């Protein structure tokens, strides 16, 4: 008889495309577990009593239960357990920072030299297995006659929409762009999250009865007040996402060849500029500097690499401080991305011609940087970087991508005078996502500033519950 638990200290490795092959294509990097590997990995979970993984999950997926079903080979049962708490399992299995959430707390990973159970990899396996093998569409719940509007079709909005639809609400999602999915389609690249997977999750919501209206910039075309007063929505959830990209305020940021990561990724992902026959142009640089160290920076760097460039990540702190998921950093390194750490840009240099009519005028020719060292930890415990005087040097690049986060979009605030915002412009909410306007809730990056997909989903989930209570109490 096979052993009940698999006591191997290490995770089953994730099969992946060879780095030297994948850095030249846009197909998905990680290939996913086979059924055998998934069962073997699932048996590494010892169903410990404390279940620290569940508490560490922003949407509290019943992780030991679903893993137990995987170990039994009952993958559909595992899927049903996951979807009680998560509307987007195929997405989360791919993009969640598991190492700081569920897997970061896993009992199997506590001892030195031991790795956590591959919870994210198992979640992905279960969702992919379901999508490949189960053709039944979800069945819409009987309608309760109440209408709820969702602003934005990213992870927060889709989660909130799914939860409310399952409770019988008539949900309409308003999306500003021409396609639903928010950051999942404009931001995260195909090689990390295939767009067909996002489309499948959106289709599942439609099957639940959720209506999706694209090309609707709420605030401009219909205001929040009008949604409530003229269009008969009992409640509104704002999941409009992060806002305007930040720049460094250094000389040269308006040169041609300088992109925000959002612009570069939107051109490549949403507008498909990575395909050679695309109608949207993108600069295919020979040498690209990506400034920043988060997940978005890794996505931009790996995209630029696939478009044929030598790519440098320029980050002012050290390796330990890189905020990106570990796996993204490892993948980037394997693919040949150069990490210039403890390095900060001071200015972007222009091509030399001074004749504005010369086509070469006004393009990026290099990025001047200064070396940094880490000082003493500040109050937050983070060691703040300091410049090393006189250490300036130039990296000769023809494209610079600024990946420094975002500041809140002023559009909804400008068109909704009663909507209170925080000092920096994030929409003010309580712990359930309730805003200063009755019946209006908000969650995800619009409320918190730039964060993660799963945190946005968690917020969408909490607000769905609060909206349900609000409408039921109003009756």
């Amino acid at each position, binding site marked *: 008889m096979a052993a009940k638990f698999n006591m191997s200290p290490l995770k089953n490795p994730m099969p992946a495309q060879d780095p030297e092959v994948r850095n030249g294509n846009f197909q998905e990097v990680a290939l996913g577990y086979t059924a055998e590997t998934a069962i073997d990995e699932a048996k590494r979970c010892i169903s410990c009593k404390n279940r620290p993984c569940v508490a560490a999950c922003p949407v509290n997926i019943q992780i030991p239960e679903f893993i137990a079903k995987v170990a039994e080979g009952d993958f559909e049962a595992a899927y049903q357990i996951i979807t009680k708490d998560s509307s987007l399992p195929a997405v989360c299995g791919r993009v969640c920072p598991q190492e700081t959430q569920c897997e970061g707390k896993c009992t199997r990973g506590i001892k030195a030299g031991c790795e956590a159970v591959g919870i994210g990899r198992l979640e992905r396996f279960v969702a992919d297995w379901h999508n490949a093998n189960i053709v039944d569409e979800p069945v819409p719940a009987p309608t309760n006659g109440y209408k709820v509007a969702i602003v934005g079709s990213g992870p927060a909005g889709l989660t909130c929409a799914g939860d409310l639809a399952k409770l019988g609400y008539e949900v309409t999602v308003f999306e500003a762009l021409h396609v639903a999915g928010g950051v999942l389609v404009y931001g995260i690249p195909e090689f990390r999250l295939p767009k067909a997977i996002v489309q499948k999750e959106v289709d599942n919501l439609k099957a639940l009865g959720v209506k999706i209206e694209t090309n609707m910039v709420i605030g401009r075309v*219909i205001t929040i007040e009008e949604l409530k007063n003229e269009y008969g929505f009992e409640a509104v959830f704002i999941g409009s996402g992060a806002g305007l990209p930040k720049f460094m305020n250094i000389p040269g940021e308006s040169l041609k060849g300088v992109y925000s990561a959002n612009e570069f990724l939107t051109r490549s992902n949403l*507008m498909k500029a990575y395909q050679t026959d695309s109608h949207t142009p993108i600069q295919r640089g020979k040498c690209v500097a990506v400034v920043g160290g988060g997940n978005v920076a890794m996505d931009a760097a790996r995209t630029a690499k696939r478009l044929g460039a030598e790519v440098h990540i320029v980050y002012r702190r050290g390796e330990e401080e890189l905020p990106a998921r570990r796996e993204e950093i490892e993948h980037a390194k394997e693919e040949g991305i150069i990490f210039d750490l403890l390095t900060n840009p001071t200015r972007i240099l222009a091509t030399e011609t001074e004749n*504005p009519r010369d086509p070469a005028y006004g393009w990026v020719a290099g990025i001047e940087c200064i070396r940094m060292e880490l000082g003493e930890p500040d109050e937050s415990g983070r060691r703040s970087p300091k410049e090393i005087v006189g250490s300036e040097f130039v990296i000769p690049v023809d494209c610079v991508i600024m990946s420094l986060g975002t500041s809140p*979009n002023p*559009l909804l605030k400008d068109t909704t005078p009663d909507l209170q915002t925080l000092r920096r412009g994030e929409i003010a909410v309580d712990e359930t996502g309730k805003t200063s306007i009755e019946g209006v809730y908000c969650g995800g990056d619009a409320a918190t500033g730039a964060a993660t997909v799963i945190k946005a989903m968690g917020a969408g989930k909490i607000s769905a519950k609060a909206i349900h209570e609000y409408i039921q109490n109003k009756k």
Partner: protein
Amino acid sequence: MYSIISKKSLNPTVTQMEIYAPFVAKKALAGQFVILRVAEDGERIPLTVAGYDREKGTVKIIFQIVGGTTELLNQKNVGDTIPDFVGPLGRPTHTAGLKKVCVVGGGVGCAIALPVAQALKEQGAEVTSVIGFRSKDLVILEEEFKAVSTVFHMMTDDGSYGRQGNVCVPLNEMLEAGEQFDAVITIGPLIMMKFVCAATKPYGVKTVASMNPIMIDGTGMCGGCRLTVGGKMKFACVDGPEFDGHEIDFDEAISRSRAYADFENREREKTCNLFKKEVQ
């Protein structure tokens, strides 16, 4: 899908269309813009609203055929549809309190200057219009401008119609003669707006320029449309599209506007060639 309700060629390179888009028509105001796509795999392009009919639910656009997308749009006819038409975006023209205004339009920019002039006329302001074109065969909207203007100047670069010279000639004459305007509003090629702003600056006349930089999403997300205004970075899509003309760094805007000029030309040729093949 959004239907094309009417189509009219204003000159060999400029076309006017009315698009059925009732949500946009209900809210659009002078100075705002829309973003459209012509094909399912097409790029998103911004076009400033040239008019609207709230009852019919239509929005008027006027575009110059410059790249692949505008070429493709121009090949569409009444009854055809386009997949995406989103708006109104950006902040409307600030006309409140203006009593005497000079509207300066150039080329296809006149299409956007006209609704501004009309809005001003409707609120009882006295409108002086100066519109300029390269030559007679490119003139558009002359009668419409005359209908709303107390004073009207038509200029062509080559003198083939109206007076010869650029729009700054009559503007300078009026300013020198001591004419007082509450504001000058200018819409047209960047280089023209740069010179209009330079002309008004010594007189301290408030001057507003409508910018139309390269955009993608149009909602503030990408920053591709950034401009330097008064030394600060601004996004045309959410902070504009209109800005204080005396504060805009036009040289930078001109340089940025040419970022994809080669690509645009290639795309347009490709589209034209495809169309020629279909016709053959």
